[in-house]
């Protein structure tokens, strides 16, 4: 698995660098958006507000959303691209299972994406002199969100295998995602609270907000619940993907996009 992960990392990195116009376009867009965020929060926040906290949570929220969108569309997009370039079926003729291959790929491309984001953020902070505080305590909460995102990525991948054309669905999903990440489920009570725990990624996103914006410490029980939520969605996604793979093989439509 480590060998495969490194091979995927090399493959993605080489392709990114070799066709650098795409890479540069991507980096420019991210940089502009972040720079805009920095400026606008400074403007909105004004000199009287406690600027630091607000900026941090806006940036973290935005990073989280881009990463979640990136992860969620990664597998479906990958399937579609590979089918077009005529390499998809070769991925299924491997002693590694398709779930292993695509999970490894998704993690490799997340690693690259995170590296890019971190460098850009670092650069902006250097330029603007702003400081982002990123308490290490948010990391576990962040991971629960990622688990859920990977679960949904496999669900989207399954839809892509079965339906082939999923661009529009992916678009709609990005907004659903925005809702899931923004819904203040941590302040819900009663049966709504239960629903909040069941929604994908919502518990983890809530924890992140509490820690980042309100400066509360990370409580073990909510973290545990968020972990379980993430793990369940990941498992669900993997199971669905295996079923979709089998159904697609039954229909004889693996390569046919």
């Amino acid at each position, binding site marked *: 698995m480590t060998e495969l992960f490194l091979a995927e990392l090399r493959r993605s990195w080489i392709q990114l660098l070799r066709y650098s116009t795409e890479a540069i376009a991507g980096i420019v867009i991210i940089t502009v958006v972040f720079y805009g965020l920095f400026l606008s929060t400074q403007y909105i926040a004004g000199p009287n507000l406690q600027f630091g906290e607000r900026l941090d949570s806006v940036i973290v929220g935005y990073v989280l959303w881009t990463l979640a969108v990136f992860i969620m569309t990664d597998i479906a997009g990958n399937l579609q691209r590979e089918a077009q370039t005529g390499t998809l079926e*070769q991925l299924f003729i491997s002693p590694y299972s398709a779930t292993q291959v695509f999970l490894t790929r998704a993690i490799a491309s997340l690693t690259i994406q995170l590296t890019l984001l971190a460098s850009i953020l670092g650069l902006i902070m250097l330029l603007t002199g702003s400081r982002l505080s990123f308490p290490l305590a948010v990391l576990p909460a962040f991971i629960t969100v990622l688990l859920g995102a990977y679960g949904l990525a496999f669900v989207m991948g399954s839809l892509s295998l079965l339906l082939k054309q999923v661009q529009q669905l992916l678009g709609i999903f990005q907004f659903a995602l925005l809702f899931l990440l923004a819904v203040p489920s941590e302040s819900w009570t009663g049966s709504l609270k239960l629903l909040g725990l069941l929604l994908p990624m919502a518990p983890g996103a809530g924890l992140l907000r509490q820690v980042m914006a309100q400066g509360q410490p990370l409580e073990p029980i909510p973290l545990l619940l968020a972990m379980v939520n993430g793990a369940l969605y990941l498992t669900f996604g993997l199971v669905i993907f295996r079923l979709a793979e089998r159904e697609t093989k039954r229909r004889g439509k693996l390569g046919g996009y």
Partner: protein
Amino acid sequence: MQILEAQTLKKSYPVKGQAVLAVRDVSLNIAAGEVLAFLGLNGAGKTTTIKMIAGLILPDAGWVRIAGRNPHQDAKALRSLGAVLEGNRNLYWRLTAAENLEYFGVLRGLSRRVARQRGQTLLERFELTEKRTTVVQALSRGMQQKLAIAVSLIHDPQLLLLDEPTLGLDVEATQTVKTLVREIAAEGRAILLTTHQLDIAEELSDRVAIINQGKIVAEEPTAELIRQFSGTAYTVELEAELDGDRLQKIEAIGAVVQAHTVIVRDPALLYHVLDILKPLPLVKVEKDRANLTDIFLTLTQAYPQT
């Protein structure tokens, strides 16, 4: 040793709500070192069969074993399998030849070190060393296909599936692919090859299986099939046209004369005819030999649409 065993494979596809049988009870066996040419018209079911063997399409019935393992249940079976699929590029166009070999090597379960070593050897062997740092996109179609075959061999599989490997190649590249296929089989691998080009099948294959409308209508050693379909007539070719006396004698015993050639339908009469011709100079004496194209057309037309 049988590397590939496929038994009574069946597959139907739903077309407008109805199940259309694409493959019916296809069984194939290929031993180590053997080349089986799998022939059939467009839509006969070749690709469906190949993909069922590769674990890419789930059969409705029947089973597959590659080196004794079922590719649909045991991922280890896929270690013994390499495939170049039809109409696909099978390669990453943005990666170089060497990078493709390395990546697919790891994907097939090798370590990076071994994948690199084997990639290097294959590049040398396939005469692609000069192109090792060229991206696939910039290679000629023939070189891409050579590289695709090299990549399919990176993990040293016992079975190689080649679906239309010479499609769209020029004469020279076709020749190269033919030579490679022969060499690969000589190393003891089993090869299943589909092609439209029957002359290629005739030259390369040890055995032929002809599929028509999803059913295998002939499966024989290539030489045996050709012998069966070959006539018993002989053709004798002369340097000069026959003169009057000999012409009459030969026609009298029932042979046919066409300018420089004499066609002897009944093989028992051959030496009779040769006696009469003696001592005229001959160009050649030849027994009629069917070619695979005639056989193929005969067989696929003998089993019309059902």
